[in-house]
C-alpha cells in the first residue's frame, strides 16, 4: 500500500471542510449526502489502514529534525478507526439536529476540519506537525462552541484559554524533551521521567489530560453543555477529545517516558485520576439538567482512564485505554439521546421531563443501555474496563485509589438512576406536550452505540485481543503473561463483588432520596446534596469558587483594577491635569512676551549677542 495513502485521512476531510464552508446554506441535500458519504469513506479507509497496521511517510520539511513525518502503527490505526466511526455517527445525527442552524455551513466545516486535524495529530510521528494539528483543534473547538449562539461566546473564550494553557504546557514539555533527547521524532524517544525529564513529563501530561478534560482543566465542559450545540458535546468532549487526550497520555506514559508502577509520577497521575473521578461525579450527582449532568460525567470518567494508565500496571493501562473507547461510545450515545430528547421535548431540564419512555422507546432504550454501561453494570463494556482499572489500582498496593474509584462508581450509578428515572420513567410530566420518537437519523446512531456497548461488554475478548492487547505489546516486562481477559466476565471474585456491592448501595441511595423527596426522581440526590459539609462545598462550587479559570479571571480583573486605581489613574492625572496646566501656563507666559513690537525683538537680539559675547569673553580670557 502506498505510503501516500496516509495523507488521505487528513486531506479528505480537510477538502470536505473547505467545500462545506463554501457551499451555500441552501444546498442542504448535497451537504448532508456528502458529509455522511465522506465520513463513510473515511471509515472504510480507517478499516483498510487498520488492516495494514504499519506504514510510514516522511517528507523533509523545515530541517533541524523537523519533518512532516506520519506513522501508522497499531495504536494510531485504532484511534483513527474510532475517530472515523464517531465522525460518521455525528454526521448522520447532524443531518437532522443541525439542519436549521443558521451557521450550519461553518458547523460542518469545523467538524470535518476537526476530523482532519485529529487524524493528523494521531498520525504525526514528529512533534512539530503534532503541535500544528493539535493547536488547529483549538480553533475548531472555539468555532464550534460559538455556534451555540451569543451566550456561548464567553464559554468559547473560556474553553480556548483553558485548552490554550494546556497546549502551552505541552509545548513547553515538548521543548524540554527536545533539549533532553535532541530529537523531535516520537518513535525515537524513550526516557525515564527523572529530573528535568520529570518536569517535561508533567508538562506534557497537563497537555494530554487537559485535552481529555480532567480536573482542574474541565470547567469549560459543563458551561459548554448548556451553551454549545449538543452535537458538539457528543463530538468533541465526549468522543474526539477523549480519544486524542488519552491517546497522547498513553503515548507519553508508554513510549516517550518509561512510567513505572509505584513511582512518584505514577502516584501523581493516579491522584489526579482519583480526584477527578470523585469530585466530578459528586458535581454530576446534583445537576438538574441532563446535558450538564452528562458533561460532569464526561469529566469524571476521564479520571478512570488516567487512573488506569497511571497505575503503570499492564492490566490497569489496558483498562484505561479500553475505558477510553468504551467511554467515547456510551458518552456519545448519552449525549445523543439527550439531544434526541431535546429535539422533541425542547428541554433537557430534569424537572420538566418525565415518563418519556413510552413515547420515545428507542431513545429510552439506547439511553438505558449507555447509562448502565457507564455505571459499570455487568455485562456491559463499562463493567469490564472499570474492573480492569480497579484491579490495576489494587495491584499497585495503594488501595486508596481503588476505594476512590469505587466511590465514583457508587455516585455514577446513583446519578444515572436519577437521570434515567427523571427523564424516561416515573410519572409523565405535564410540562411537556405529547411527543413522538425522534426521526431515524437521530435514533440510529444512539442504537448503534448502545449495541456496541453490549458487544464490547459481552464479547469483551474481541476488542481486548484485537485492539488493546497489541498496544501493550513490547511494554510488558519480558515473561509476564499478559492475560487480563480471563477474569472479566467472572462475577465470582472479590473485586467484582465489591463493584456489585457499590451498585447496590447506589440503588439504595437513589430509592432513599426518591422516597424522601415525595417520589420526585429529580430530587433523589438531595439527601447527599444537603449533607452538612458537602452542602457548603456544593454551594461554593455552584458559585464557581473552585473554577480556576473564573478565579483567575477574577484575580486578573482585581489586579487590573488595583493597577488602574493605584498606578494608572495617578499617572493619567499627572499627564492630563498637571502637565497640561503647566504647559498652558508656560505657553501663555511666553506668548505675552511676543507682543509684535519690532523694538522689542531687536532688543532681544542685541541682548542675546551681548550675552554670548559676555559668556565667550568670560571663559576665554
Amino acid at each position, binding site marked *: 500500500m502506498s505510503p501516500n495513502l496516509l495523507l488521505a485521512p487528513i486531506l479528505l476531510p480537510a477538502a470536505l471542510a473547505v467545500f462545506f464552508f463554501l457551499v451555500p446554506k441552501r444546498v442542504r441535500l448535497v451537504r448532508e449526502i456528502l458529509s455522511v458519504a465522506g465520513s463513510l469513506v473515511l471509515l472504510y479507509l480507517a478499516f483498510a489502514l487498520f488492516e495494514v497496521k504499519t506504514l510510514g511517510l516522511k517528507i523533509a520539511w523545515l530541517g533541524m529534525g523537523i519533518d512532516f513525518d506520519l506513522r501508522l502503527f497499531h495504536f494510531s490505526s485504532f484511534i483513527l478507526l474510532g475517530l472515523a466511526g464517531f465522525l460518521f455517527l455525528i454526521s448522520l445525527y447532524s443531518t437532522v439536529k443541525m439542519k436549521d442552524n443558521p451557521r450550519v455551513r461553518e458547523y460542518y466545516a469545523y467538524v470535518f476540519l476537526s476530523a482532519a486535524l485529529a487524524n493528523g495529530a494521531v498520525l504525526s510521528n514528529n512533534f512539530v506537525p503534532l503541535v500544528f494539528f493539535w493547536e488547529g483543534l483549538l480553533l475548531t473547538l472555539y468555532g464550534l462552541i460559538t455556534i451555540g449562539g451569543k451566550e456561548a461566546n464567553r464559554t468559547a473564550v473560556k474553553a480556548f484559554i483553558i485548552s490554550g494553557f494546556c497546549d502551552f504546557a505541552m509545548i513547553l514539555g515538548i521543548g524540554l524533551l527536545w533539549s533532553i533527547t535532541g530529537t523531535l521524532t516520537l518513535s525515537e524517544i524513550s526516557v525515564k521521567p527523572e529530573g528535568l525529564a520529570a518536569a517535561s513529563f508533567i508538562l506534557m501530561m497537563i497537555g494530554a489530560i487537559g485535552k481529555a478534560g480532567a480536573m482542574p482543566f474541565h470547567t469549560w465542559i459543563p458551561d459548554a453543555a448548556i451553551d454549545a450545540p449538543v452535537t458538539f458535546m457528543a463530538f468533541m468532549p465526549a468522543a474526539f477529545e477523549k480519544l486524542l487526550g488519552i491517546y497522547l497520555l498513553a503515548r507519553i506514559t508508554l513510549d516517550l517516558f518509561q512510567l513505572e508502577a509505584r513511582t512518584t509520577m505514577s502516584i501523581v497521575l493516579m491522584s489526579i485520576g482519583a480526584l477527578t473521578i470523585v469530585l466530578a461525579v459528586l458535581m454530576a450527582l446534583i445537576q438538574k439538567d441532563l446535558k450538564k449532568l452528562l458533561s460532569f460525567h464526561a469529566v469524571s470518567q476521564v479520571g478512570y482512564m488516567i487512573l488506569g494508565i497511571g497505575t503503570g500496571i499492564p492490566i490497569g493501562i489496558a483498562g484505561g485505554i479500553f475505558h477510553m473507547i468504551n467511554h467515547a461510545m456510551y458518552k456519545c450515545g448519552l449525549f445523543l439521546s439527550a439531544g434526541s430528547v431535546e429535539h422533541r421535548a425542547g428541554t433537557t431540564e430534569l424537572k420538566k421531563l418525565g415518563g418519556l419512555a413510552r413515547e420515545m422507546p428507542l431513545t429510552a432504550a439506547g439511553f438505558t443501555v449507555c447509562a448502565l454501561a457507564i455505571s459499570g453494570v455487568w455485562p456491559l463494556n463499562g463493567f469490564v474496563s472499570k474492573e480492569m482499572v480497579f484491579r490495576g489500582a489494587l495491584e499497585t498496593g495503594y488501595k486508596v485509589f481503588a476505594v476512590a474509584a469505587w466511590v465514583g462508581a457508587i455516585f455514577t450509578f446513583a446519578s444515572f438512576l436519577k437521570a434515567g428515572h427523571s427523564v424516561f420513567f416515573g410519572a409523565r410530566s405535564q410540562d411537556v406536550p405529547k411527543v413522538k420518537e425522534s426521526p431515524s437519523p437521530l435514533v440510529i446512531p444512539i442504537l448503534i452505540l448502545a449495541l456496541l456497548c453490549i458487544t464490547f461488554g459481552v464479547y469483551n475478548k474481541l476488542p481486548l485481543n484485537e485492539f488493546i492487547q497489541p498496544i501493550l505489546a513490547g511494554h510488558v516486562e519480558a515473561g509476564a503473561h499478559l492475560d487480563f481477559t480471563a477474569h472479566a466476565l467472572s462475577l465470582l471474585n472479590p473485586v467484582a463483588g465489591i463493584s456489585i456491592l457499590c451498585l447496590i448501595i447506589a440503588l439504595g441511595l437513589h430509592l432513599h432520596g426518591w422516597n424522601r423527596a415525595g417520589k420526585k426522581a429529580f430530587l433523589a440526590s438531595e439527601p447527599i446534596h444537603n449533607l452538612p459539609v458537602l452542602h457548603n462545598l456544593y454551594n461554593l462550587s455552584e458559585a464557581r469558587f473552585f473554577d480556576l479559570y473564573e478565579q483567575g479571571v477574577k484575580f486578573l480583573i482585581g489586579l487590573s483594577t488595583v493597577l488602574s486605581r493605584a498606578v494608572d489613574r495617578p499617572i493619567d492625572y499627572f499627564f492630563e491635569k498637571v502637565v497640561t496646566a503647566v504647559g498652558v501656563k508656560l505657553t501663555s507666559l*511666553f*506668548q505675552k512676551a511676543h507682543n509684535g513690537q*519690532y523694538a522689542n525683538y531687536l532688543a532681544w*537680539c542685541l541682548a542675546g549677542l551681548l550675552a*554670548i559675547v559676555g559668556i*565667550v569673553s568670560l*571663559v576665554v*580670557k
Partner: protein
Amino acid sequence: MVFLFVAVPLVVAGVLPLLGKLSKRVLPDILSNLTFLFLLVYAATAGRQIIAGGPVSQQILWFGEPVQILLGLDGLALFMLMAIALVSLCAGIFSIDYMEHYGAKANYYALFLIMVAGMNGLVLAKDLFQVYLFLEVAAVASYALVAYGLGYEELEAAFKYLLLSVVASAFVLIGVTVLFGLTGSLGFEAVGRGLQELPAGPMAALCAALFVAGFGLKAALIPFHAWLPDAHPSAPAPISAMLSGLLIKVSGIYALTRIFFSVFGLTSLLSNLLMGLGVISAVVAALLALGQKDIKRMLAYSSISQVGYIVLGIGLGTPLGILGGLFHLFNHALAKGLLFLTSGSVQMATGTRNLDEMGGLAKRMPWTAATNLVGSLSIAGVPPLGGFWSKLVIIMALVQAGRWPYAVIAVLASVLTLWYYLLIQRKAFFGKIEERWKDIREAPFWMTAATVILALLCIGVGIFFAAVLKSWVQPAADVLAQGVTAVIPRGR
C-alpha cells in the same frame, strides 16, 4: 561642473521675466520646474561622481580669466544640494496650481530661482565673503517673496523680516571683517590656518560670538527668533515651505556649522553654547507652538523648535551627534515642507488659517489630511517615519556622550511636539465637518501631487533609513567630523 548649481537657476531667473511676456503661465511653470528637476537629477547623478575622489574646488573663469569666485563641493555640500533640490522641486510643483490666483508667475518663479541659486551658492561657498554674498542673495529674494501677496500683513511681516535680517547680516559682516583684519584672508582654510598661527584668542572668540548671533538670527534660534513666526506664515505656502524647510537651515545652520567646523573648530565652549541655544529653542518654541491658533504660525514655531533639535545634535560635535543633526535637518526639510504645503491647500480651500474655525476637513480633503498626518507624525517622531530615526540618533548620541539632562529634555520636547501636531490634526481634519465647509474641494492635482511625493519620501526615508543614512548623510557628517580643528583658546 559645480558652478552649474548656481549658474543654471540664475540664468533661468534672468530669462523668465522676459519669457513671461510671451506666456503668462505655462512656460514659467514648465521652465522653472524643469530647472528644479535638473538640479535634483544633476545633484543625484553627477554630484556623486564629481566628489568620488574627495572634495572638489572649482575656479570660475570669465573669458578665460580666473575671477575670485571659488566653489567647492564635498559630501556635506552635496547632501545640502540634494535637500534643496528635492524640496524646491516639490514646492515648484505645488506652485503650479497654488500661484494661479497671485498672478505674475514669471516674476514669482524668477525670485524663487534666485533664492535657490543663493542657497546653492552658499552651500558651495569656500570663503567667508562668499558666505555673506550668497546669504544676501537668498535673503533679498526671500524678502520679496514674503511680501508677494502685497496685503497689509504680508508687507508688515516682510518689513520686520527685512529689518531683523539686516541686523543678522550686519553681525555676520562685522565678524567677517574682523577675521579679514586679523588674518588677511577670507578662504575658510586660510583663515583657519591664520587663526591658529596668531595668538588671537579673544578677538577670534568675539567673531565666534558674532557669528553665533548672526547665523542664530538667520536660523531663528531663541532669542533671535522673533521675525520668523511673522515672516513664514505670511509668504505664499510654497515659499513658507522653502523658508522653513530650507532657508533657515542653509543660511543659518549650514553656514554656522561650516564656519565653526572648518574655521574655528568646535571647542567645548562653542559646543555648550550651541547646545544650550538648541535646547532652549526646542522647548520654548514647542510651548509657544502649543498656544497658536493660526495653523501656519504653529508650524513656524515648530520650525524653531526643530532647528533647536538640529543644533543640539550638531552642537554636540560627536560623529553620531552630527549624523543625527544632519539627518534631522533632512527629515525636517521634507516634513515641514510638506506641512506648509498642506496648510496652503487648507488655506486655499477654506480661506482661513484659524484652527478653531476648521474641523472635519478630512472628509472633504482626504489626500491633504493623510499627507498632513504623515508629515506631523514624522516631525513628532513616530516610528517608522524618518523623523523618528533622526530624533532617535540625536538622543542616542546625547546618551552616548553622557549628556543625560539634554537627552531627557529632548525626549520631553518631542512629546510636546506630538501634542501640538495632534492638535492640528484633530482641530483641522478630524471630527465632525462644520456646516460651512460642506462644499469645499480637495486641492487641485499638482498641489496634491507635491504633497503626496513629500509624504512618500517621509515614509520611504523612514523605512529605508539605514540606506539613506549610509549613502547620503554619513559622507556629509564625515566632512564635519574631519574638519574639527580648534582655534579658540581653551578656557574652561
